[in-house]
């Protein structure tokens, strides 16, 4: 009736599986509800604390604009984490991409943008190839890029920022507005929507989550793992390139020290958004809300003249709380 060990084990596992599944669902739903609630609580708290300035159209757009750099990077990071990987190098790559853009396009906007995007993509591709084909674990491969790309940025720029004051289009992207809406915020929203469609509505996105959710099953279903794994790091690099343009435009210069600690902010936003670090479960909406949560928090504490230490502290508390909601049932 059965093979020696497995069917009983299998059957037992099956009966045991139903309860945790139901529980896991409740947890997921609770968590999906949790982040919007946090955002609303922050909005309410902000309105109470500062009726005049906080909940205004201008201030909300400021939040969106300030969050745009982290936000664009976090969208790429969501794809990486969806496969069960991690990208620690985004901050360093951002500086390197900005400097590379500045070197090829000091006078004109288009070469600058192509340079930044192209170099971001290239560095991301290096990450992806090292991980997928070189079989280096993502943590180590991107840790190497974290160190290497920063060094590259400092070396290429001779440790000095490159002024981009002549690049009208780039500066416009960073600080300009269309119909009163900051361009950076528009770019952020567009990248988010694009990422959402890519992840949820295309074959590629389905394959990304399949690889993260069950590598073995994905292979047996004919999905080629290495191209998928390579591509998510390349995508992360491309998002970094976009973020480099936004940040350089805002600052009016390409700085070799830009993007410091960006990786931590991006990973934190993705994780509190509900994407599983183990891979296989990813949500762009969650990532967006995660970015917004930190943006609102930062904005609110600033309005209240709270010291930056307190911002850091509350960020830590939020990450821990989100992780506690996300943890698996033991």
């Amino acid at each position, binding site marked *: 009736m059965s093979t020696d060990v497995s069917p009983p084990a299998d059957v037992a596992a099956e009966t045991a599986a*139903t309860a945790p599944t139901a529980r896991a669902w409740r947890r997921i739903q609770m968590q999906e509800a949790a982040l919007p609630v946090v955002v609303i609580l922050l909005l309410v708290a902000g309105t109470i604390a500062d009726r005049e300035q906080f909940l205004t159209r201008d201030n909300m757009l400021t939040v969106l604009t300030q969050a745009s750099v982290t936000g664009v990077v976090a969208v790429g990071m969501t794809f990486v984490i969806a496969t069960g990987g991690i990208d620690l190098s985004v901050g360093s790559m951002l500086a390197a991409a900005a400097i590379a853009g500045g070197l090829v396009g000091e006078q004109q906007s288009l070469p600058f943008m192509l340079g930044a995007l192209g170099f971001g993509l290239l560095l991301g591709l290096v990450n992806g190839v090292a991980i997928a084909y070189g079989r280096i674990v993502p943590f180590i491969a991107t840790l190497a890029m974290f160190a290497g790309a920063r060094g590259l940025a400092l070396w290429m720029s001779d440790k000095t920022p490159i002024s981009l004051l002549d690049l009208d289009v780039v500066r416009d992207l960073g600080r300009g507005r269309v119909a009163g809406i900051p361009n950076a915020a528009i770019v952020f929203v567009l990248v988010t929507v694009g990422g959402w469609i890519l992840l949820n*509505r295309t074959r590629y996105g389905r394959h990304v989550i399949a690889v993260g959710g069950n590598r073995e099953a994905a292979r*047996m279903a004919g999905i080629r793992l290495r191209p998928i794994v390579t591509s998510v790091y390349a995508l992360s690099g491309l998002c970094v390139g976009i973020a480099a343009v936004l940040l350089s435009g805002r600052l009016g210069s390409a700085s070799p020290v830009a993007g410091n600690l960006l990786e931590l902010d991006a990973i934190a936003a993705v994780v509190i958004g509900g994407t599983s670090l183990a891979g296989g479960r990813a949500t762009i909406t969650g990532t967006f809300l995660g970015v917004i949560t930190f943006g609102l928090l930062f904005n609110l504490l600033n309005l209240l003249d709270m010291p930056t230490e307190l911002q850091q502290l509350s960020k830590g508390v939020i990450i821990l709380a989100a992780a506690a909601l996300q943890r698996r049932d033991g």
Partner: protein
Amino acid sequence: MSDGVSDAAGAPLLAVRGLVKDYPGVRALDGVDFTVTAGQVHCLVGQNGAGKSTLIKCIAGLVTPTAGEIAVDGAPLPPGDPAAALARGVATIYQELDLVDDLTVADNLFLGHEQRRGPLLDRPGMRREATAVLDRLDHASIPPRALVGGLPPAAKQVVSIARALTRQARLLIMDEPSAVLGSHEVETLFGVVRRLTAEGVGVVYISHRLEEVAAIGDVITVLRDGRTVAASLDPATGRSTLITAMVGRQFAEAFPDRDPDRRPGPVVLRVEGLSRRPAVRDVSFEVREGEILGIGGLVGAGRTEILRLVAGVDRPDAGTVAVGDHPLPPGRADAAIRAGVGLAPEERKAQGLWPGWDLVRNVTVADLRRFRRRGLLDRRAERAEARRHLRSLQTTPDDPERLVSELSGGNQQKVVLARWLLRNCRVLLLDEPTRGVDVGAKAEIYRLIHRLAAAGLAVVLVSSELAELAGLCDRILVVADGRTTAVLDGATATEADLLAHALPHDEEATKA
């Protein structure tokens, strides 16, 4: 042999009485009686699924029996308590040795019961002790400081036994200890076993190699369908007598009648000289449209590995796989799938499914290309197609938005089948399709397999259940130790034929 209960002094070392273990839909043990006396090697034989592993897991306390009693020295063991079993001197050496490769021999021997001096590990003391134990097994040549990962298989086996001895084991249960050993290494193992029994240790020895059983055993017990069918046989009992006792399982499932109209068409799958040593050696076969080819053999004979090679999941050392007239590139699962090969793997949940996904996604994942409309997935079409195939297989519940983890084993299997039907595959590789599936659902899956073959699919079926192979297949390829040992006609093959070819032969010992 069971009247020692009242008198502890005369009690056997181990007495198992009326042991029953039920799993949902499966009775793994159905009243097993089994007695081991001190200094005895008691061999346990039976085909896949006879209940050997469940029995030893019950004795070791890893599995809680539904009913029955297990007594050591006449005193009952608390059920389902591995620590108590260990404390009473029952030690088990499983097929997958539970040694830590990155620790030294001495560290492994004392893992979990380390000797200490104050708060620190007493490493010199443990090394001395390790040397003493290894010497007792006549293996003082194994250095206690060596890393276990670097030892040959036979030495690892000895370390496992030594580990049991450091815990004062008096009953040693060995599950297929010779499976990974060469023939001269088996001699070494026998030497160790004889030494232990001379000291009064009782040994339960499980093996598929009947020649070995005859050589080392004092008595032999045969299990079948979770029952003791022959207890304490003389080790001189002939091979054919044992095989007869091992087969003859009673099956509740009705296999579908052979359809006289089903005539295999042209050859679809052609496998030649396929090898991936040591698991698979020079295997060749052909499967025709509408044909069901069984692959039989014991667990570990290389059946699963053959399917993985055909499906391109693993890369062969040698040999070719062709579908139709097109040879497949080696080790490319995507190319095999494009050519029409679908694999339903043995470990359904680990390898075949995304338990947290709904049925639709699980069904369409291998063929998303066809649902692309201007780059985006047409989710309505996706859902409709998935539902159509799930319905054709009568998957319950009939709700494609359920999570696959909420389905029963049989229905999960259907989800995997639906995936390959949706992909229009021509060759279906089924690895233990009825594992973990209850009796009623099994019959349904049998009917499905026949239906799919009748529709023109070439089916390759791997199963541990000999009756399943004999009842379903047109032809049966029997493998042992990675080699083809026979190709039998499904209509006439009996379980005894299959088992006789599946049991590995030791050339010298067969004469007996």
